[in-house]
């Protein structure tokens, strides 16, 4: 092991420069009134927390939690049966169907968002094809459908990888001992796949919580999410706020990071071996 350690140096250096240092800067900006671009003297302060009282930020947090929660729930309800079905197929068929889920991920996410935007337009190519007009742009439904389409594969993969490795002998044993289908599923299969479910939930929940392009385009900017607040704070409001908006954006970003870390720790506690986490 010792001899291998030096091969990790590039990685460690990379992490230090591009992850640890930026996080420290984020931390510093969140708790100080330091003006990133103007420099000068600064003091540590908790004043930036006032941002969490702003109506738009509160709305955004509410929207984010509700939409990310709904997305995750929908992905689970759709994704679990899919993963279960795929895991029962012969290996080759399963792999082919699985790759059908992966291939869309290779296309640019923005393109997929714009495609949904076209579908949700009153007079779209979809209308020409089917005669149905879906005028959903600007609604939470549109965002939800878009997010589920975007993040569903991330729910399916980890569940599938757990189910695929599941020891069939355990299922047969349960049946031999008289369990019916429902009992086999609820008391054997599902508990054994819980680690995968948890990974799936994290893999879906976190990107859904932080997305900002998708809600801006499919929600027509009417449904602000927390990602939009960060974008606005760091990209749009910088000059007008004597730099303060950067500190506010940093604090909101940091809060999301803390939330992610908490969720991650919960997940690793639950899934000690950590082997299902992608």
């Amino acid at each position, binding site marked *: 092991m010792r001899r291998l350690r030096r091969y990790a140096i590039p990685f460690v*250096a990379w992490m230090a420069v591009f992850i640890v240092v930026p996080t420290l800067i984020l931390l510093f900006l969140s708790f100080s009134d330091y003006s990133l671009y103007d420099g000068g003297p600064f003091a540590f302060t908790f004043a930036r927390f006032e941002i969490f009282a702003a109506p738009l930020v509160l709305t955004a947090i509410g929207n984010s939690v509700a939409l990310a929660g709904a997305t995750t729930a929908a992905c689970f309800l759709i994704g679990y049966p899919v993963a279960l079905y795929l895991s029962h197929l012969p290996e080759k068929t399963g792999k082919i169907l699985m790759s059908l889920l992966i291939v869309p991920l290779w296309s640019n996410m923005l393109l997929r968002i714009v495609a949904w935007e076209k579908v949700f337009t009153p007079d779209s190519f979809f209308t020409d094809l089917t005669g149905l007009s879906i005028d959903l*742009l600007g609604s939470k439904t549109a965002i939800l459908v878009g997010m589920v389409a975007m993040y569903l594969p991330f729910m399916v993969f980890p569940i599938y990888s757990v189910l695929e490795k599941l020891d069939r002998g355990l299922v047969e044993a349960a049946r031999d001992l008289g369990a019916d289908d429902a009992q086999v599923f609820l008391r054997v299969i599902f508990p054994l796949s819980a680690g995968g479910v948890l990974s799936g939930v994290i893999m879906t929940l976190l990107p859904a919580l932080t997305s900002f392009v998708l809600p801006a385009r499919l929600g*027509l900017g009417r449904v602000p999410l927390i990602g939009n607040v960060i974008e606005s704070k760091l990209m749009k409001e*910088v*000059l*007008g706020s004597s730099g303060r908006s950067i500190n506010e954006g940093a604090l909101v970003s940091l809060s999301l990071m803390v939330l992610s870390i908490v969720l991650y720790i919960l997940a690793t506690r639950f899934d000690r071996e950590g082997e299902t986490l992608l």
Partner: protein
Amino acid sequence: MKRILLLFLAVAAGLTALACESKPKLHVLNWGDYIDRDLVERFEDQYDVDVIYREVGSNEEMATLLQSGSSTYDIVVPSDYMIDKLVELELVQPLDFDLLPNYADLTVMPRLAALYEDAPWRDYVVPYAWGTLGILYDTTVPGLSDHVASAGWAALFDPAGTYDVGMYDSPRDAVAAALLYYGFDVNSTDEEELAMAQSALVAADYTAWGEDSLKSLVIGGTLDLALVYSGDYFSEYAAAVDEGRAVTFDYFVPDTTNVWLDAICIPTAAEDLTLAYRFIDFMLEYEHALQNSDYIGYAPPFQEVFDTMTTHPDYGYDDDHFDPYPLGATRQIYAYGSDARAEALVAILAAAKAG
């Protein structure tokens, strides 16, 4: 620790070697699809240089890039109010017009020149393109053309919600539209006027808040009308004509509106001043200015180019909306104002979006 240091040095040395091996570089920061790349290539060939071109989507992004200093730029093309702020922050430098011989051969259109002759940034810019703020609407909606023409700005502020209206998701533009609706100045700092603007924006309860997405929403039928820049209209108009689609939309410019002006500046931190001036002067050569303005399709700031584009049969820019400042119209140009005002604008937009 030593190893890490060595590795860093090795990487740094590698990067420096890469950077040094080639020709002089000119770093340009501009808007997306806002220059004829053929001209850039010709410039590169003529002077045997590399132009590193970076595109951004907003003035704020441009300013953030200049302010952060993460990389230096030799040329930047911001708009009026942002130039105002960049001058105040000393992020751009005054131009030496003696180094731009071609500039003397062109005449800035007098009505445009009058708009910024008193501005503190007058000597920092070479104008690049200009246009108006106006209303893009769907001509297939019965009665909408008449409604927009008679109501003017009020068409964007109808609390009854007869039409699906889109508003620019930019504090300065949204508030300017509301101020114009009441007949106030776009640069108003009067608290009462700004409060009225906020109420109007809140009451309008927009169907969509967007940026360059608004134009396609109007054309796609999601929106009936929206606040847009003239550039949004021209690019869609050109696209429709090129693709042989029917033009189902039009652009209305109320008598009093804002004029935007994008202009070339040289950042204070520019590294290659000689090359920067060469580039600007290259773009100012009459033939090049004409080719570039024809490519981007917005009104050119120079009278000679404008006249050719509107009268010469090869160009035919005779669109009613092409002249951003026709006789009889009133035009206002943004000033940055104070940081406090900019912050107030952000707050107004936040309130309007929160409903």
